[in-house]
């Protein structure tokens, strides 16, 4: 029980916190007299350096082990690197954002949200998980409201906050019930207790309540109502962070809780063979999300809203992975979510660039984008086709793994109905992605707009993401191999 051991385990988080505070104080103390542009560059670069430093730290040190509430499975390092990478790109695309004067606060909150996400995947204790969820959520609420000139932004933040606190209350209630029936908060201990107990209704209530909180975080229907408004009204870089990094963290914890904690209350989702447990719950959330997300996306005319509904649908696809056996479930889920996060971050990045150049996110603002910014348009093409699941882009492999994972589990071919829903809705989804691409490539550009002015860091970030989408498409083994390596070590005690 050496506390230095704890320090070793959470050193990355600590370093990031220190960087966040430095960013905050640098802006408040030394940069007050400078122009907004200078502050952006200095504080933004500092955040970028922070992410890079911690990434390198994690890559070099890999402090495996566990201490008290912290337990680091091997796969968590990969996840943390991914999260930091996503945060880095988010910072890059906010370099020339004009939505706030509170630059130090913005980057500090961004880094703190990243810390929250990292803690989220570092813990196997429900209490700690809850605290980490709150840290992420509070940072995100505040960031959503940062655009003080926009009433919509404040409104979305309020809505996000209210809805989020209801969800947090449900989650906390579920956790307390779980604690009530098992007397434990550590996931492995809970699993042990549950195995010996006969499952009563109270167990299921506890389980559903806990899952509800996460269903909110991943915006699974019917707990998705906040998502379109928040994605639409929040400043675009923040929306992209909510859609990408926070999804990765939440999905991993969801998987960890259900697989490691509730393993014995699995249930079944075969057609006509539904059995009580978390699997049918997730199967239903997945179905509703896929249907609602894809259908409603069709009639959207704003790109951010469209991406929000598509995010709901993708949440549904990702949930399908959890029907598989333990390791398969986690690896296909993580592969799906990570590739999705990379793709959607890129797509939002392009939207942000259009907005910075004076546009908004209506379809008409994207008309003729291919003539105004050819490289960016090509990246958008890659992102949208990947979201639509066209091979050989990474989105297709994600879907393929998830589909095969869903029927490789104990339900076997009886879970095929989910695949049919998933496949049919993904056909529908192509329609609206093509709608956006049609605006970009076919529609004539308005007469009075010139080419887009895109800052270098943002361009680098977006192009890097596009390259990642393509490379992971041709060689999914790169990511999948690392995921599997990380998981084989801990498959039993995830």
């Amino acid at each position, binding site marked *: 029980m050496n506390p230095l051991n704890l320090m070793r385990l959470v050193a990355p988080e600590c370093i990031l916190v220190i960087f966040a505070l430095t960013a905050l104080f640098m802006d408040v103390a030394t940069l007050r007299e400078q122009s907004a542009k200078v502050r952006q560059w200095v504080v933004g670069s500092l955040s970028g350096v922070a992410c890079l430093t911690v990434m390198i730290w994690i890559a070099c040190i890999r402090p495996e082990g566990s201490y008290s509430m912290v337990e680091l499975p091997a796969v968590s390092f990969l996840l943390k690197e991914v999260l930091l990478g996503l945060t880095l790109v988010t910072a890059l695309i906010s370099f020339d954002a004009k939505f706030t004067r509170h630059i130090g606060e913005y980057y500090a909150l961004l880094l703190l949200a990243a810390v929250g996400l990292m803690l989220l995947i570092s813990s196997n204790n429900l209490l700690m998980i809850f605290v980490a969820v709150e840290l992420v959520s509070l940072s995100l609420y505040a960031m959503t409201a940062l655009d003080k000139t926009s*009433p*919509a932004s*404040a*409104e*979305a933040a309020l*809505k996000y906050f*209210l809805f989020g606190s*209801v969800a947090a209350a*449900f989650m906390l209630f579920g956790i307390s019930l779980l604690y009530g029936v098992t007397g434990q908060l550590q996931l492995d201990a809970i699993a042990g207790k549950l195995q010996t107990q006969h499952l009563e*209704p109270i167990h*299921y*209530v506890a*389980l*559903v*309540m806990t899952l*509800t909180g996460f269903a*909110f975080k991943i915006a699974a229907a*019917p*707990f998705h*109502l906040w998502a*379109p*408004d928040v994605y*639409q009204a929040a400043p675009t870089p923040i929306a992209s962070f909510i859609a990408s990094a926070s999804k990765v963290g939440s999905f991993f914890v969801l998987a960890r809780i259900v697989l490691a904690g509730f393993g014995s209350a699995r249930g079944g989702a075969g057609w006509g063979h539904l059995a*009580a*447990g978390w699997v*049918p*719950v997730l199967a*239903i959330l997945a179905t509703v999300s896929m249907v*609602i997300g894809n*259908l*409603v996306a*069709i*009639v959207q005319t704003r790109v951010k809203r469209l991406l929000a509904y598509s995010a709901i649908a993708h949440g549904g696809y990702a949930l399908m992975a959890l029907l*598989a056996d333990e*390791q*398969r479930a986690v*690896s*296909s889920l993580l592969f799906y979510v990570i590739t999705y996060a990379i793709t959607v971050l890129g797509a939002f990045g392009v939207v942000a660039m259009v907005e910075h150049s004076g546009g908004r996110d209506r379809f008409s603002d994207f008309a003729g984008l291919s003539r105004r910014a050819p490289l960016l348009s090509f990246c958008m093409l890659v992102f949208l*086709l990947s979201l639509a699941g066209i*091979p*050989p882009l990474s989105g*297709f*492999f994600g879907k*393929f*793994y998830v*589909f*095969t*994972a869903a*029927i*490789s589990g104990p339900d*076997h*071919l009886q879970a095929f109905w989910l695949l049919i829903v998933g*496949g049919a809705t*993904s*056909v529908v989804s192509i329609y609206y992605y*093509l709608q956006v691409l049609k605006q970009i*490539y*076919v529609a004539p550009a308005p007469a009075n707009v010139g080419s887009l002015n895109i800052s270098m860091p943002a361009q680098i970030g977006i192009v890097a993401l596009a390259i990642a989408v393509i490379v992971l498409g041709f060689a999914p*083994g790169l990511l*999948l191999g690392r995921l599997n390596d990380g998981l084989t070590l801990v498959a039993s005690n995830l």
Partner: protein
Amino acid sequence: MNELLGFLAWKVLFLPLLAAAVIAFFLQARPRLAAVVSVMAVVVSFILTVVLYAQYRNYPTVVQVAIPWLSIGNLNIEFGLHADHLSLLMALVVTGVGSLIHIYSIAYMQGDRSYARFFASLSLFTFSMLGIVLSNNFFQMFIFWELVGVSSYLLIGFWYEKPSAADAAKKAFLTNRIGDFGFLLGIIILWATTGSVKFSELHSILAKNPGVLDGVATAVSLLIFCGAVGKSAQFPLHVWLPDAMEGPTPVSALIHAATMVAAGVYMLCRVSFLFDPFSLQIIATTGGFTALLAALIAVQQNDIKRILAYSTLSQLGYMVMAVGLNGPSAAMFHLTTHAFFKAMLFLGAGSVIHALHHEQDIWKMGGLKSKMPITYWTFLLGTLALCGMWPLSGFFSKDAILSQAFDQGNYFLFVIGVLVAFLTTFYMFRLFLVVFLGGAKAHAVDHAHESPRVMSWPLVVLAVASVCGGFIGIEQFVQHQFSPSAEVEPIFDIMGPFAHSPAAAFAGLLVIFFGFSLAIAIYWNATSDPIPEKLPRLSRWLRNKFYFDELYARLIALTQDSLAKVADGCDRFLVQGLMVRGTHGSVEFFGRALRLLQTGNLQTYALLFAAGVAFVICFVLFR
């Protein structure tokens, strides 16, 4: 030796991709060089394929090369090539016909401002198509399958400034995706039940244990057939192909006549061992129905490319029917000969269109015989081959299909096949008489002249192939694939069909005569189409393609759009006020929205949230 052959196979596949990449990254500004690179790549590919083929003829061992690609759980997939009778024949068609069309495009696309982009897309297409042909497993094939779809999308929408082209590209893409969705699900079930997606493994698993697919055999067969329905434009997903004619004519010739649309048929032949009798029945019926439907529609079209497109549909129907009748070798045979003469017909049509400055209405042509002699003669040969005139190639391949139907005792499909042959002759000679004979029906014809050499030579080469393709042993070659033990028939047997199944052969020739006579009777020296006046109702239905487009549009509007609107309405209703007004952004509205939030909406949210939770709990507990 095998290693060298494997290396060659890799080269065949990747040369076009290399060309596409080089053009896309370095040669955008150097169109002439881009064309040269693209043409060189496909010609070298062709030569290498010929080498592989020659080697294979001498030592028939299947070339297999593979590298492990990815593995997750018990799903192991490799990236591999497989060169046997079937894939070598198809690769020869793709690269051979492809080379000619590449060369033809050099002149046809002259002066287009996206010359380099055209050749890059064409090379990308060649690569993807070869990928389908040489794949050794379903997964890899599916990826190339989609890549082909993407490159076809790029090429149909090549002139994206035209809204009709952009719409056609979208339609083709979406329609194909419906088929592919079934295809993918089929592959996944297949993998889930047999544990493999590799063709050779599947073959041996099924040979060893025929019962392994029990219960899902029909589902798997039909789902996989879905893929072919989409790609080969069979009923009910046939609507995209005629619209795809918005692309440049060489593209129509290569992709939407000779190769890509045949990929569905090729795939069916590749996995013909999978299908159970019931699904074979469905496949055959679908094919026959498509053949008839498309042939009927073609009778009343006036756009030269659309007539050919419907004719392609109809011929693809023949091929699919042949697969369903347990005659994959007949299907492949017809696929090959069809590639020759249909590519030639399209290139001929392109030559005409080129000469007439992009006029496509056949009633504004006429009298081109003397102005464009090479086009005229090759087009005549193509028409005769398509109709199935002895001893041109079409006769042999069509006869193979008809006799297959006859031998199987499926007289219904046999009659349909003969009827389609009759219609084919009728509409092709309608086209031919109106376009090339009679007097000039428009001014543009007066200035028409023969196309440049680089366009007419490919026509001549294809004409030779169309004439000889029937009796040089293509069917016998590919038959090895499906029945390795069958005795080798004499190759140069021009009279073979008459001896083998006289009924089919004579019926085929008889209806050609009838069709030809009818076309002469109606369209000799006609200046306008007399049928709409005499049979207005029939003509209207045919002209409007039996209203399939309208029906689908209505259906989609009814289901998808209204569902989407309902779902959206629910979402909007639930968060009404907030998002509708909040997004307007004015302070006043914000105040009102906030009030709404305080008086009602938060409760709505919480209520909905709680209702969702209650629903899920009830579901879990009391189901």
